[in-house]
């Protein structure tokens, strides 16, 4: 009788961890499902076909160019990569329209453009446009492709 009571007492003092693990695994799965529902993006405006000509001819736009060797120029003025953020602040802190056109060489990696957009957002730019290749560049690209 006394032994039986003692055995019962030992069993009750043990914490049963199996349901805990079960609950934790279910929670883990719930978190795994909910996390990817948020995307991180950088938005780029796509010009309409007929607008693309007029926007490139306007001279008061800020156009950033990434050359074939990776050098960066803003309105044809060369800018060092490390000084880019300061330069963006200098331009856009006093400018009402937070618009930047980016023109990248065809052989530069996509990553370069994303990096520039990222820095530009830190520098106060709100709207981004990709400058389409000029007619002769497009023709050259088409010729190399076929």
């Amino acid at each position, binding site marked *: 009788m006394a032994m039986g009571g003692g055995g019962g007492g030992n069993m009750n003092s043990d914490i049963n961890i199996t349901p805990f693990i079960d609950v934790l695994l279910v929670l883990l799965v719930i978190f795994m499902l909910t996390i990817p*529902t948020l995307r991180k993006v950088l938005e780029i405006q796509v010009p309409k076909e007929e607008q693309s000509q007029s926007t490139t001819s306007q001279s008061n736009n800020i156009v950033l160019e990434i050359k074939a060797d990776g050098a960066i120029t803003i309105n044809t003025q060369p800018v060092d990569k490390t000084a880019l953020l300061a330069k963006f602040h200098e331009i856009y802190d006093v400018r009402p329209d937070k618009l930047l056109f980016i023109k990248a060489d065809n052989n530069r*990696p996509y990553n370069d453009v994303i990096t520039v957009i990222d820095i530009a957002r830190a520098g106060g730019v709100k709207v981004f446009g990709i400058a389409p290749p000029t007619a002769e560049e497009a023709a050259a690209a088409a010729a190399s492709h076929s």
Partner: protein
Amino acid sequence: MLVLLIIFMITAPLIASGFEAQMPTGINLIKATEDPNDVVLGIDRQDSFFLNTRPITKANVTAGLRQLYATTHTTDKIMYLKADKNLKMKDIQEAIKLARDAGVAVIAAIVDQQPLTTSTVSTERDH
């Protein structure tokens, strides 16, 4: 066991589609909530196209996009671009051109947050 089953159910379509791409990383990103109606154009490292995870040929991209925008009831034509970071801009420009032909107004490039960083500017959409 059930947990493992669920995990495999989630990963199986990703592996089966053959989409292999590494997203670029950035710091000052915009948060966009995923929606089942979103149009996602994927370009993997071999420059093959995927429209909402289904493989598609380059020639059919514009038609495919048009069809998706016609069936989903979205007013703003946003296309999510999930492209490998090492792709040449030439390929991206081509994809942008195809998207423009389908009437896309905004391209949202999907970018991974650089580990241990938070955005220094607003993460909300500006427009």
